[in-house]
């Protein structure tokens, strides 16, 4: 009861005409920033923090606007994944797998509608979880040790082979390529430089967002150039401009399953939205394996990862607010924002500055509703993007990619890295190797290694520590069960042709 009144107080703080206008602006700007490749929530919020200050906004108003931008980016990231096969930000990579095939088949508006609904369900689930359980769930972060994180990443890598419907060996090869790329940089445990060729620019390794923009956007342009040379690219059939209500709900229960999996990943600091989207997709694919058409435009393949990454974004706010630990780049920016507003996240935040926290939570609910109502009408606008001639769209993609990457680090070195990844992406595509597992290897590989190193530092090199905690053992058991299930399913005759892989 106390919580309800606290939340009501939060809404009272959040709902004023000025705040509502700022919330709408934040949602709109956030969606666009998220949709543009390279520009993500990290630089989106970082860029707009000075704007909030120069407008002289009240701290609560600034917080509301910027948290709307944060949630807006999470909604927006999916748009270019679906329309262009270019993820707008890291968590949106999984949405390319089924979203783009669906758009290519002329069902772009359906894909956008399914993902908008999934984003809404996931984000609402995450926000409700944050409201009800924040102090309780903060404990999860405390009892999850390095060995347990390692087991979680083992689970992710063990299931990575099933992520695409092409040859699983090529998928594994791609994941290992990503792992290798992740080893470049300063070794966090000892500070030793690895594969940096003596360049300070490589000390921090390759930024995943630069790799993603290169691998997907630049290679897309290269593939397009080749097609033009060979005689014209095929126009994508447009399909209907606005989705029907039935199409919106096509995600069905996958929305909720994805939300649960994503939320669990979100509350673990360091795991975050990318892992949430990935695990939701893998889980959904296993769950619906018998009649699935995953990889060729299954609605559940869009709904699950979108619900997952949005639920994870809500979940990731829990360790950030209650422990002051940013789990990802985006929550790190939110942390910076709170600190610059003189809000000190940590164990005492809920007791000391309840107005601010409940105002923020209320703003997240508002942002969610605003985003859903804003995104459905915008579908018509975005589907028309596909009717643009490619010779306009592709140069625009190149321009946005360069600007986006440069705005992250202000470094021309990263532009070369991006182009290098673009060429690599082109070669991999020509070899029929999927790009998504490369990025997953890169995103998850570094964390997996760090946690292994931490576990072994604690045990002075004794590998037994990896199997000595109940959490880790449970995770290994689930992994084994998932692999066994995949094996059993592969022995049974497939129900339809689409389930046959390679």
């Amino acid at each position, binding site marked *: 009861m106390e919580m309800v009144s606290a939340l009501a107080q939060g809404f009272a703080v959040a709902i004023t005409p000025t705040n509502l206008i700022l919330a709408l602006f934040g949602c709109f700007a956030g969606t*666009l920033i998220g*949709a543009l490749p390279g520009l993500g929530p990290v630089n989106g919020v970082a860029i707009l923090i000075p704007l909030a*200050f120069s407008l002289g906004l009240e701290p609560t108003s600034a917080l509301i606007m910027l948290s709307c931008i944060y949630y807006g980016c999470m909604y927006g990231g999916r748009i270019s994944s679906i329309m262009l096969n270019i993820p707008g930000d890291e968590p949106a990579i999984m949405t390319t797998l089924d979203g783009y095939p669906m758009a290519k088949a002329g069902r772009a508006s359906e894909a956008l509608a399914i993902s908008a609904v999934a984003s809404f369900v996931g984000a609402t689930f995450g926000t409700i979880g944050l409201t009800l359980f924040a102090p309780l769930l903060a404990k999860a972060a405390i009892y999850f040790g390095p060995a347990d994180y390692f087991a979680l990443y083992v689970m992710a890598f063990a299931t990575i082979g099933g992520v695409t419907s092409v040859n699983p060996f090529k998928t594994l090869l791609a994941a290992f390529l990503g792992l290798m790329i992740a080893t470049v940089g300063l070794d966090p445990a000892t500070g030793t430089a690895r594969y940096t060729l003596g360049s300070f620019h490589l000390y921090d390794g390759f930024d995943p967002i630069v790799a993603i923009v290169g691998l997907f956007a630049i290679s897309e342009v290269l593939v397009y150039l080749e097609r033009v040379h060979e005689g014209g690219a095929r126009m994508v059939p447009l399909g209907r401009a606005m989705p029907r209500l039935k199409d919106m709900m096509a995600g069905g229960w996958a929305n909720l399953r994805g939300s649960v999996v994503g939320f669990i990943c979100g509350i673990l600091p360091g795991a975050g939205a990318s892992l949430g989207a990935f695990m939701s997709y893998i889980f959904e694919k296993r769950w619906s394996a018998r009649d699935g058409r995953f990889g060729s435009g299954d609605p559940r393949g869009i709904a699950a990862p979108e619900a997952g990454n949005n639920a994870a974004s809500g979940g990731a706010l829990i360790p950030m607010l209650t422990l002051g630990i940013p789990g990802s780049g985006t929550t790190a920016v939110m942390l910076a924002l709170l600190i610059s507003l003189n809000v000190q996240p940590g164990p005492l935040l809920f007791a000391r500055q309840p107005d601010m926290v409940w105002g923020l939570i209320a703003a997240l609910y508002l942002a969610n509703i605003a985003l859903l109502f804003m995104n459905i009408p915008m579908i018509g606008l975005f589907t028309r993007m596909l009717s643009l001639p490619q010779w306009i769209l592709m140069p625009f993609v190149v321009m946005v990619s360069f600007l986006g990457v440069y705005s992250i680090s202000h470094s021309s070195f990263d532009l070369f890295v991006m182009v290098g990844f673009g060429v690599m992406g082109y070669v991999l595509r020509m070899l029929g190797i999927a790009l998504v597992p490369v990025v997953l290897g890169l995103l998850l590989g570094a964390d997996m290694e760090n946690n292994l190193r931490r576990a072994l530092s604690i045990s002075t090199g004794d590998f037994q520590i990896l199997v000595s905690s109940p959490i880790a053992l449970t995770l290994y058991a689930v992994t084994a069960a998932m692999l066994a299930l995949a094996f059993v399913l592969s022995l049974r005759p497939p129900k339809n042709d689409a389930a046959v892989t390679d």
Partner: protein
Amino acid sequence: MRNLSKLLGAAVVWTSLSFAGATAAECIAPADPGGGWDFTCRTIGKMLFDQKLVDAPIQVTNMPGGVGAVAYAKVMSSRADDADLIVATSTVGVTQIAQGKYPADTSVMRWLAMLGSDVGVILVPKDSELKSLDDLIGVLKKDPSALAVAGSTAAGGWDHIRLLMLAQAAGMSGDAYKQIRWVQFDGGGPAVTQMIGGQVQVVSTDLGEIAGFVESGDVRILAALSDERVPAFPDSPTAKEQGLDVTGYNWRGFYTGGGVSDDAYGAWVDRLQKLYDTDDWKKTAQENGLVPVWRGGAEFDAYVKDQAEKMNAISREIGVVK
């Protein structure tokens, strides 16, 4: 209508560009948003504007890479004479310089000032059997690998070196204290939560980031590595009081390019000193676990160079630098 989304996209990009290109002074935080250097830039940048010491809000640029080495190289090579640029740094940056991990030594920059300092602390969980520094040293002397100690830096970083300085002062030999188990986490917050969860037994890190955990009573300060007791926690003893003459400050300050004129350099030192003299700064510093300490201009320049030399000596002694 069909070009609307593109136009808006261009507008967003344009906004970001015009911010980056504004003529206001710029503060480079050589790290991702959310960290200590980012905090230094954002807080002090905002206060300089609030106090009307600069005409326009200070633009904060995040330039992560190489624990500050990328920003150092950038300023050295292309912005050495940019009078509108300041760069946040701290003891962590100087440690890297002292260990030869930056592209150049301290002489290529002009060191402006430090305005405050974070204090290194040795922490244990609230129900730990270790009640004093003596208890800790006693256990480590008996068996150096008996305890797993965590911090926010790699082995050989400032959090680790401070711990080893204590061991050294207590009379442990290099061969013994090399065996102390060191676990790196991505910040003091994760290190402390992992300690509360029982993964490690002791944490050596800065107080500022984790002060909330001390206030809430989840962890205890075994020793503060400062000359005097930390004002926010008057009940927590220093290492000096417990007989080990070790301090481990992590000061926050700024440098600017080596080619900046004496006038521009002096103007920055002056602005920062005026800010330091306000009550607002002292209040903000204390709220964030910093002790307000001023060293500016030539005095600070000499202090940084001296600190780098001392750290280099310590690093050699404990075998971090060959």
